[in-house]
């Protein structure tokens, strides 16, 4: 969480950051002009469906995408430009990452203790013994029972939740300035999800690191992130301080995403509203707004022009017909009246439309 008493320095600043993959069909623009700035000690949640570019964005920033990519725009980490530069000097020292699936992201043939103590020995010059002691300390901190015994075990001997705790201990051992958690709880049992998330946030606020949590679940972001960024088709649809976003969603995509997940305080038998259609083709995508083909607000202009970004008191969104505004209400009403949108998406009935 943001500490307001301290002067806040910017850890990560992206300006029109782009990542493309060379494919046989052409350039796949997985990240298509993202700008953001992350302050020391704050948490940003990146939310979006699978294929929205959130993982590529973060692996791109980390420099873990390999050689077959084209990077563009600018990404500054603590004032140093990252684009087209090697990021190896930051790995394991200033940047760390937690991956989605703790089974596949821990080395199956290496003792977990060794995997945690590796960065301690490599970058902090600890002796084998000191690194072992520190690892056991970290295991205790993240709530791994019998830590000394666990040190010598292999990943397959631990449960999913324990493995993710091991992953968090690795991040802790590194004690980075920026921690990127890519869907840290998606593969876990719901009963341990909350524990792991709270643990991450607690550690983050204690050690004053900045954190990016990638998730497709808006609920995960709620209460844990200072800011939320909603991504779709490699672009930022909406970005706002967390509570502002939950109070007033401006982008139809954010609204659709939020309506597609169950909430506890919904009345009984409330139907979830899936978002019709599929994420856009990133090689040969829509001309205008990327979400237009699936949007219930879509008008003719959405097909031809990319909506400019509106910034209103820290709340940024890119839409011609934002939710709740006069333009938006009118657009939705006209689409409902004719039964389909400008892209030909059928709207079933007024009561079911969002």
């Amino acid at each position, binding site marked *: 969480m943001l500490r307001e008493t301290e002067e806040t320095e910017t850890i990560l600043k992206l300006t029109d950051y782009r990542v493309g993959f060379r494919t046989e069909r052409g350039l796949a623009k997985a990240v298509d002009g993202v700008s953001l700035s992350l302050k020391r000690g704050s948490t940003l949640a990146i939310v979006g469906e699978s294929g929205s570019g959130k993982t590529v964005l973060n692996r791109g920033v980390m420099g*873990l995408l390999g050689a077959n990519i084209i990077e563009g725009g600018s990404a500054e980490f603590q004032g140093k430009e990252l684009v087209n530069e090697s990021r*190896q000097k930051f*790995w394991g020292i200033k940047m*760390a990452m937690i991956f989605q699936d703790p089974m596949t992201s821990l080395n*199956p043939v290496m003792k977990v203790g060794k995997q945690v103590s590796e960065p301690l020995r*490599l970058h902090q010059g600890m002796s084998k013994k000191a690194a072992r002691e520190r690892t056991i300390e970290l295991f205790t901190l993240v709530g791994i029972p019998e830590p000394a015994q666990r040190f010598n075990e*292999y990943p*397959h001997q631990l449960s999913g939740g324990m493995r993710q705790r091991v992953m968090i201990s690795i991040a802790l051992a590194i004690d980075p300035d920026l921690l990127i958690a890519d869907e840290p709880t998606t593969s876990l049992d719901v009963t341990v999800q909350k524990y792991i998330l709270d643990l991450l946030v607690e550690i983050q606020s204690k050690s004053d690191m900045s954190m990016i949590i990638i998730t497709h679940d808006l609920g995960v972001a709620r209460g844990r992130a200072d800011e939320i960024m909603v991504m779709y088709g490699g672009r930022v649809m909406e970005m706002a301080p967390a509570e502002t976003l939950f109070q007033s969603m401006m982008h139809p995509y954010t609204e659709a995403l939020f309506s597609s997940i169950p909430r506890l305080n919904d009345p009984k038998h409330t139907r979830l509203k899936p978002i019709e259609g599929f994420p856009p083709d990133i090689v040969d995508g829509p001309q205008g707004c990327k979400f237009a083909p699936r949007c219930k607000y879509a008008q003719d202009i959405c097909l031809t022009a990319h909506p400019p970004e509106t910034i209103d008191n820290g709340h940024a969104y890119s839409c011609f017909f934002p939710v709740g505004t006069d333009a938006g209400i009118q657009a939705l009403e006209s689409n409902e009246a004719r039964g389909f949108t400008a892209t030909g998406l059928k709207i079933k009935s007024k009561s079911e439309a969002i």
Partner: protein
Amino acid sequence: MPKAVKRFIGLLGLLTIVSMVTFGAMNFLGDPLFNILGPVAADVDNPESLAAIEEAKAQYHLDKSLPERWARWAWDFIRGDFGVQFSSSGQPPVSDLIKERLPRTLELMAVAQLIAVSLAIPWSVLAASRANRRTDKISTITAFAFVSIPSFAMAVILFYFFSVQLDFLPDTYTANDPFWGFSHDHRLIQLILPGFTLGLGSAAAYQRLLRTDMITTLQQDFILMAKSKGVSKRRVLYSHALRPSLFSLITLLAINIGFMIGGSLVVEQFFRIPGIGSAVVEATLREDFPVVLAVVMIVSAGFMVFNYLADYLYTLVDPRVRHEDSSKPRKITSMGM
């Protein structure tokens, strides 16, 4: 019943079947009496010759039925007596012949495998870390060249360059020289050229396999994780990616060692190493069944032992195999034995 005991029984059963089949097959091939007695064996009209034939038949138990002969042979074999050679003198006994020749073949094999593995590992790691780039493509072509050059050609090429032209390695193998040492008068050095002849092809085969497995491993998330921890590229390759990639290599290694025991005959002939390979060539030509049979038994037993060792190696390489419930089917399939 413990797994090890079960496997041992299976191994014995298999050896029994192999010996029966070989024993039977060899009998259809020719008349061993000819080798024992010479031309006399064909001279059945002469009573003197006939007497000699009868005597030899009795001496070598050739007058008994096939199953009985097999049983006699097996009983001797278990007690370490591999029988007598089918030659006029019957000397030396097959056991002595094997005892003399087997170590030479095993030494050659050890040198060849050591060369093959120590070439294949860095070669595969290099190729995998540059998958589909120029280095990898060149190494693939090289590997195919090594695999496709037959051992007799490889022997000639290596011999010509390193022994004749460069005069760098010894050209003769002397069975009586000591093994351990680093001069031309030590067998270790004399085995380098034959070792490379056998080893280069194997190294290339191992490289094909290990490279593919390494590439698969390098795409795993835990490799990204290791990188993001700031582990150096070299360390990622050798201490994170290599070990989980070794399975197929171990399997092939076990098969290949078995093949080499029996298949080193060309190399043994070329470099004049009196080992098992040359023994079996000579014996087959002479229809010297007991020798052939003994070699067949050694090769099959070798196959099984090395596969057993390979299974043990799997558990060393991957802790998941070690901790697995033995009642569950295994994911990695060894060759059964």
